[in-house]
């Protein structure tokens, strides 16, 4: 291990315990926050962090929330998120957070305590094989067995987490190792013969791609989470503007292109807009950037492949290319670097655009269908209306986190994200319970920012204990609970596909969320009247220093539209009854 990690030139190495080395490494990495929860195996580390004042430790109420908060901190800032948990149950509690980050390619370093080396394999108290448990849901993991390996391992962990396609890295450290003493030398660089991500795109492929884009009659740009994580949004905007091409974002990619721009056709996929899905299906040249054609995005791959189109795919991860859909021009590289090269090549072209007038008039016709239209009611609060008003009240500037379900889709459809790293949700794993810890991570990332957590009464209860953490650190988060007393997305599928048999999707015995929030010292509000929605949101966001829990009682029967049903093609959307009947009337 130390053979491949270059030693620092510093000859005044200080002798210290493994625990102090862990803490010093985190400070060398300029970590600002460590989200964690103490326990037996990490007591030495907790003692060491007590004695330092580099990073701040944030005490959560459950290890899952520690990892989610670190994950959101990373999504909001672009820095590596750090979590610290104890062995056994602390480690297994962290696994959902790690898997969530893995699916969305979020760079994390998770340090877990382990039983002392001689106790490993003895079924010791609070022992679990953390390296084995997390192997399928980490980018990489390490078990450190010697105190001298701590520093080079943590250096590698940060390097692996943030380079290439980012992801979580677990460093499992036995307790006795943190008590042993070694000289502390933090390696300045890392070199690994087995790990060299490709950053620069192949110039021939890039030239070919630009030529193809300029030959397109019906072009389309489709970007995902990779564009946001790879900080490529500015270059993409430049390219899309120069070409005047339509742009769609995946759920993970929202904010990668400004949603209020006229070239933006909305999110695509299972609950994408009509125009985005139709344009995706019918385009002749598709530029995919940091996206992976997943099942929720393109629907049935056979149906998608049934339409002929030329696909250019930029991704830092070669294994994401031609995985679900065969690609014509693969470009492996860092999205920012490749897009910047594309912009340069485009600038040298004689004709820097292509005639897309017919294509745009077709798209505008699709747009005219207004697939996100819904019927406002003055007697019951429509969830879509709450999100629209939230966007207005926060002027589109808030960090918005969501949990998983209907409210997540409405948040994605109706909050117009103009900037990257503002929309924080669990797209890949679809983890209920991320919303509140995600909001915590965002608020630590930017303490003056407006942070809204759009959630449901099912999801919020999966990490409701974090109301206590929010109180401890005075986080002025605004929880926007769209409370329909149902596990809404489950109910919607049961309505559509199980003949209204609402098996276990109704939630009885909900707490009084207002009183619950108040019991932690927060402000609680219950809003039942549509006329009060805007005023209540304004009042909540005016309370800049308070955590406000807003319980919106919403329409229990509202469904998310459009919808591409499981196994169906992207252009086979079911429109809302309202849209469908309006179209019928127009015929």
């Amino acid at each position: 291990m130390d053979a491949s990690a270059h030693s620092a030139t510093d000859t005044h190495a200080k002798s210290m315990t493994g625990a102090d080395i862990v803490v010093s490494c985190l400070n060398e990495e300029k970590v600002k926050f460590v989200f964690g929860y103490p326990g037996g195996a990490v007591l030495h580390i907790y003692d060491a962090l007590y004695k330092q004042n580099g990073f701040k430790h944030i005490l959560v109420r459950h290890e899952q929330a520690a990892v989610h908060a670190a994950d959101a901190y990373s999504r909001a800032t672009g820095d590596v998120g750090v979590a610290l948990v104890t062995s056994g149950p602390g480690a297994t509690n962290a696994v959902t957070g790690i898997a969530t980050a893995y699916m969305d390619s979020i760079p994390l370093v998770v340090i877990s305590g382990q039983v002392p080396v001689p106790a490993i394999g003895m079924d010791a108290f609070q022992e679990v094989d953390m390296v084995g448990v997390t192997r399928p849901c980490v980018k990489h993991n390490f078990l450190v067995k010697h105190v001298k390996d701590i520093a080079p391992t943590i250096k590698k962990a940060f390097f692996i987490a943030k380079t290439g396609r980012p992801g979580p890295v677990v460093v499992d450290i036995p307790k006795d190792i943190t008590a042993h003493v070694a000289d502390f030398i933090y390696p300045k660089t890392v070199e690994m013969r087995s790990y060299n991500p490709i950053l620069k795109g192949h110039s021939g492929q890039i030239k070919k791609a630009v030529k193809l884009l300029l030959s397109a009659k019906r072009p389309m740009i489709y970007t995902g989470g990779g564009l946001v994580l790879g900080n490529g949004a500015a270059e993409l905007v430049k390219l899309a503007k120069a070409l005047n091409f339509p742009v769609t974002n995946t759920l993970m990619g929202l904010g990668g292109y400004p949603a209020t721009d006229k070239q933006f056709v909305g999110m695509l996929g299972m609950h994408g807009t009509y125009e985005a899905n139709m344009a995706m299906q019918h385009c002749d040249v598709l530029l995919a950037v940091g996206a992976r054609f997943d099942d929720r995005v393109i629907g049935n791959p056979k149906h998608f492949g049934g339409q002929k189109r030329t696909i250019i795919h930029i991704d830092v991860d070669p294994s994401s290319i031609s995985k679900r859909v065969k690609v014509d021009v693969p470009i492996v590289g860092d999205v920012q670097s490749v897009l910047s090269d594309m912009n340069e090549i485009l600038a040298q072209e004689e004709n820097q655009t292509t005639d897309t007038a017919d294509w745009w008039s077709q798209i505008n016709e699709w747009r005219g269908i207004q697939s996100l239209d819904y019927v406002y009611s003055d007697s019951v609060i429509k969830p879509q209306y709450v999100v629209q008003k939230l966007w207005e009240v926060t002027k589109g500037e808030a960090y918005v986190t969501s949990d998983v379900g209907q409210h997540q889709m409405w948040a994605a459809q109706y909050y117009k994200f103009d900037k990257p790293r503002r929309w924080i949700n669990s797209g890949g794993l679809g983890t209920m319970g991320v919303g509140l810890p995600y909001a915590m991570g965002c608020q630590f990332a930017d303490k003056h920012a407006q942070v809204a957590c759009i959630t449901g009464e099912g999801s919020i209860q999966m990490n409701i204990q974090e109301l206590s953490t929010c109180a401890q650190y005075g986080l002025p988060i605004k929880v926007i609970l769209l409370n329909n007393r149902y596990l809404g997305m489950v109910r919607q599928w049961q309505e559509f596909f199980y003949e209204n048999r609402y098996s276990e999707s109704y939630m009885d015995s909900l707490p009084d969320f207002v009183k619950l929030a108040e019991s932690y010292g927060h402000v609680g509000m219950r809003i039942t009247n549509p006329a009060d929605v805007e005023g209540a949101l304004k009042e909540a966001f005016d309370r800049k220093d308070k955590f406000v829990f807003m319980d919106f009682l919403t329409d229990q029967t509202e469904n998310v539209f459009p919808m591409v049903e499981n196994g169906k093609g992207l252009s086979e959307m079911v429109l809302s009854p309202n849209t469908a009947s309006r179209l019928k009337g127009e015929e």
Partner: protein
Amino acid sequence: MRHIISLLMENEAGALSRVAGLFSARGYNIESLTVAVTEDPTLSRMTIVTTGSDDVIEQIIKQLNKLIDVVKVLDLNDGKHIERELMLVKVKATGVFKDEMKRMCDIFRGRIIDVADNSYTIELTGSCSKLDAFIEAIDRSAILETVRTGASGIGRGDRILKV
């Protein structure tokens, strides 16, 4: 189609489980997997025999390359290569089988490496299909026990997998 994939990886604890875990998690087939340290003690060499369509094999190679510990991956089927597998077979060596087994062993260029009162243990090396052919050729009722190593593969001539 059957492919033989060779790879070099860091000789570290858990490296084998990362490869095996990848195959099971993504539903890829493993017909055999052999691994041992190379002349460079920091490196392990692994040979994996798998089956799949071209698309699946392409994904397998990419996913193997994505593992942090994997240094190099080579699909031996991309060029000329040799594969060898070792099999030990314990067979009955009583009555008619006594001569029969000796003769079959000679035909397949095997060696009898252990002789007991009632049995021979035969060592046989060759391609997987040669070993299969031997099993097919002898009387099934004579087989007491078999153990196979799985294939090891290497490129012919200048095709070298090295760091």
